[in-house]
């Protein structure tokens, strides 16, 4: 097993920078997930670690050893591809054992290893078939089996579940989590699916335009995103945003915005908020005239286990609200108020950085009482 580190790694294709100055330490046995929108460079970063793409600048370190110039085959890694990349003309058994053929193992040794791996993945009944006769989920298992059989120090997964339907995806997700638990191997997993990221990861690396936006545990990313990008990327439905204007006198700051928004916050650092954000699940719908923001209820969606409400606050701002229960008798088109707890409020400055604010909850509650 091995640790992985990236030191000031950069890469450009032609004149287009794809990865810019990435620094990252992955501990032995950790499962780290790279997420980001498509084109953010997450797959390229994985290929840089694998050695499939040469780095432009910086170093890749595996198990304390600089491997920047070492070819992919000598890095002690295994790679599971998005398309599975099974050899279409070989049987499943040969697909899994192919890499062993060059290691000087005997036929029996190879067969034994292949059978063992196939049994773990429950594909031992498929060994004599060819890839095209298998379902997507079975192919996925073969691809993982091919990685397992080599007993690598690091596993790299490139969006391995993106070609599966949602049921299978959940099943394979659990399979991979189980695998990680039993092998305690270092794994790096690329996905654009934040559910996969949140459920699998020990730590998540959020990438955007070739840079790391934030590294943290799933909880850190959800509860304490460092910037607007991470706040908007993690969470579904995504966080509601609204541009605001703010006046500060010392640490006290009053924030004004559309929908009669008027808040007093206490900033714990420098900077002025220009935008606020609240997660849909942190919002509640208050009766008209109450709440911190007012808007028009535009649409209600009943998803069975939850309800989504869309409230238009300004012509170009519509917030989504996630409700555990049905809304009752509120008709669409009526005016409603939106409320939230102060600790659920995120403030962002002009550069998108999150501003810490200690909310004088008591004071504003007192102010409300006075007004009432």
């Amino acid at each position: 097993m091995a640790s992985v580190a990236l030191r000031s790694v950069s890469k450009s294709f032609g004149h287009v920078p794809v990865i810019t100055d990435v620094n990252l330490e992955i501990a032995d046995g950790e499962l780290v997930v790279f997420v980001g929108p498509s084109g953010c460079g997450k797959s390229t970063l994985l290929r840089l670690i694998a050695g499939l793409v040469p780095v432009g600048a910086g170093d890749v370190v595996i198990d304390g050893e600089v491997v920047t110039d070492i070819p992919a085959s000598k890095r002690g890694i295994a790679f599971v591809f998005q398309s599975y990349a099974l050899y279409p003309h070989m049987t499943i058994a040969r697909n899994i054992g192919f890499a062993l053929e060059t290691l000087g193992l005997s036929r029996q040794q190879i067969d034994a290893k292949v059978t063992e791996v196939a049994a773990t993945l429950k594909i031992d009944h498929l060994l004599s078939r060819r890839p095209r006769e298998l379902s997507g989920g079975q192919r996925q298992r073969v691809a993982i089996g091919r990685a397992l059989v080599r007993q690598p120090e690091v596993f790299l997964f490139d969006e391995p579940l993106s070609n599966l339907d949602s049921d299978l995806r959940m099943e394979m997700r659990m399979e991979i989590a189980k695998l990680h638990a039993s092998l305690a191997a270092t794994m790096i997993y690329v996905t654009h699916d934040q559910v996969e990221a949140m459920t699998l990861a020990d730590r998540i690396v959020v990438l955007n335009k070739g840079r790391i936006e934030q590294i943290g545990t799933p909880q850190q990313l959800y509860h304490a995103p460092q910037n607007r990008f991470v706040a908007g990327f993690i969470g579904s439905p995504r966080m509601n945003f609204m541009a605001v204007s703010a006046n500060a006198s010392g640490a006290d700051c009053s924030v004004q915005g559309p929908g009669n928004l008027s808040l007093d916050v206490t900033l714990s650092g420098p900077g002025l908020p220009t935008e606020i954000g609240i997660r849909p699940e942190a919002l509640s719908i208050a009766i008209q005239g109450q709440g911190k923001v007012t808007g028009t209820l535009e649409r209600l969606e009943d998803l069975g286990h939850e309800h989504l409400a869309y409230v238009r606050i300004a012509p170009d701002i519509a917030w989504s609200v996630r409700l555990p229960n049905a809304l009752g008798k509120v008709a669409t088109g009526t005016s409603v108020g939106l409320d939230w707890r102060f600790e659920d409020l995120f403030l962002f400055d002009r550069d998108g950085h999150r501003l810490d604010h200690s909310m004088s909850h008591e004071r504003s509650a007192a102010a409300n009482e006075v007004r009432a």
Partner: protein
Amino acid sequence: MKTRLERREHLSGLLFVAPLIAVLVLVAGWPLARTLYFSLTDAYLDDSANHVLVGFGNFVEVASDPVWWRAVRNTAIFTTISVAIETVLGLAIALLVHGAIPGRGLVRAAILVPWAMPVVVSTKIWEWMLNDQFGVVNRAIVGLGLADHGVAWVANGSLLLGVVIFIDVWMTTPFMVLLILAGLQILPEEIFEAAEVDGIPWWKRLWSITLPLLAPTIGVAVLFRVLDALRMFDLAYVLAGANVNAMTMSIYARDRLINNQELGVGSAASTMVFLLIAFVAIFIVGALRLDRSGAAER
């Protein structure tokens, strides 16, 4: 039962292909039929209307002509060796160009040059380069001290067929490269990345992955090239005329037909060329099919 819609589609389909069929009957069907007919007559070219049917006599005459068998032998040697070299060389160049090499765009464009040149022109240029006294090839050979005096490439009958093969390889390898390159480009790249990560050495990647996946493309390319090589006329004719050392089946047939004016015998020879090529075509197509269905069964 056919619906009215189907009948209409049938009719308009026939309407669209009618010009094609008419032209093909005129330029291919009818001439072919006449050639087959003439092969059974004693006609001469200057007065083709005046002839009688002589049965298979012309075929017997061609088959008992040692020059014909020489032409068959030449064609067979030419086809086998040139297609073999072109396939191997084409595969090598395609793999080279497919990889990351300096100036890839330039190489791709440059490869097309020999292919675009008229056969006559290529032949003339090589004939000049291989000229025994003043050719640049012999100059280079003597200059590098590989031989005391130049080799009579074209003038020496025993080397003639070799020269024909050499020039043909130069002219048509680009075609092979283009087809194999196109086949390579539709192969999924991740498979090769997987092999790379798995530490499969290059020769094993080539033998166990690239070649099996490329086999259908190579098969089709070889089929095209073999059929083209079997009917080869221009290169050998421009280089050596009707010299028996480089005479192909097509040259033999045309020689009997036009130069000797023997419409009957020439047509018989042409027909034999046709039958031979058809036979080879059926054989290769059959082999390709067998291979493909065999792969599907396994």
